[in-house]
């Protein structure tokens, strides 16, 4: 498996809004903590070191 960098969400606007809603009303610290938890949850779900490596590479830009 390799990292999918093509559009993959059926409803990108809804997904984006969902992410922002989760952060609504949070302080910067709370938001940072939420993001960190989310990354760990998603990392585990992906469960593939190679994909994670490619994702980190893509994120580094």
């Amino acid at each position, binding site marked *: 498996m390799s990292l999918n960098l093509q559009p993959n969400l059926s409803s990108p606007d809804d997904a984006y809004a969902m992410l922002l809603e989760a952060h609504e009303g949070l302080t910067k610290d709370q938001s*940072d*903590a939420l993001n*960190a*938890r989310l*990354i*760990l*949850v998603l990392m*585990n779900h992906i469960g593939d070191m190679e994909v994670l490596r490619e994702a980190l590479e893509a994120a580094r830009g």
Partner: protein
Amino acid sequence: MADAKIFDQQLYPYQRHPDQDASAPVRHPVIVVGAGPVGLATAIDLGLHGVPVVLLDDNDRVSTGSRAICFAKRPLEIFDRLGCGQQMVDKGVVWNVGKVFMGERQVYDFNLLPEGGHRRPAFINLQQYYVEQMLLDRLRDLQGQGAPIQLRGKSRVSAIGQHEDHATVEIDTPEGPYELEADWLIACDGAGSPTRKMLGLDFVGRVFEDNFLIADVTMQADFPTERWFWFDPPFNPGQSALLHKQPDGVWRIDLQLGWDIDKEVEKRPENVIPRIKAMLGEDVEFALEWVSVYTFQCRRMERFRHGRVIFAGDSAHQVSPFGARGANSGIQDADNLCWKLKLVLDGSAPETLLDSYDAERLYGAEENILNSTRSTDFITPKSEISRIFRDAALHLSERHAFARPFVNSGRLSVPCTYDGSALNTADAMPEAPARTRPGSPCPDAELPDGFLLDRLGGRFTVLAIGTDAKPVEAGDIPIDLIALAPSETLAERYGTGIYLIRPDQHIAARWPAFDARAIREAIARATGNTP
């Protein structure tokens, strides 16, 4: 009881030795510097091999305070081979359960759930002074049986000279200095190794900017026999803490203090006692046995062998205390070194065999440093984002199993497999269990009349499991033959076939069927006799 403390007694007082009155420096095959756990184990192992050894120590007693307290299964198996494992396990505290707390809440617990069919538990807690005392008792036993071991107390090495085929050692004693020569000098003189400094050798790595208060506390408390680790507890906000049980009602407490502190001030009882009260509760009665403040490093020497001087234990490599990898890995250094030195001294192996000590134990040290550095980065995050991820992992671990493997309060010491060692013969049983591939330490197994590891070690052994084998000769290197029926455990851990086991209970080679020539070739390779 305070007057009866073992570490207050002169267990090996200075005694004048005829070497001090010799007209020229006396030459010994092996001199070991430092009578800590590693130096004592080295002297005993060499003594068991019949190699004359002089063990020098600048002190005349065992170490003060608990220091290394957690002894893992593999070192206990080595102590069994040296003949003093049982006393340690009898005295030690066996534990399996660990609990992790964040703030006031327990986030999860773990059970080491040791696998069945091993003589030794995963860990025991035992103060370093008891380990040293038991090694010392064993050394005295062996001396009584005629083993060529000398222990010289209050004998501080003040200068070392390196030569092509020997080292010279200048020794300070209460009655003045004298000089000795050694074919081989083994430096087991600890993290601050005077030997390393005298030779001007580097010791590079990472210093962690943090301080920890360790206290041995005597109390009659009903805390369970478990390892408790706190991240950010209310009694030590923003820092970590550890509580662990030792024998004699002594509890080990580690409190992270942060970087910007005054060590001398923190060590004063009037400052230590309130911290411990905050942790244990106001009404718990306790007494302080020992207090120390330490900062730690993760570093190693570039090479452990420098001509005729060989470094073992903390003198060669240092790790953070998280994971109990200091003393435990030092004992494995001794285990790896002594049989090789014996073969070299006997002329049965070339000096280059000792380069495999360097290669194999460097590999072990790297693994330990990697693990202990990662634990340290988790316990004491060095950046804001590192702390955010650490807290996220802890937070998630309370409700979700997936996050628990991220939580790192110390990855506890397991022996390393010497994959890629030049002493290994290519695996001829690739389908057999990976845990017994060449380079692995032999996993123990229960036999009808005892345990497997009690039958191995000290010499090369051909272990035949469920297949025929005949005695093999390989020059002057003695080889034992053990044939076993394949019990369920043996089949699961080894499969069936022929194993060649090194004197340190690591596997050198394995084959599906007996072949005397292949065994002789593998022994040649495992002893550095293959060109």
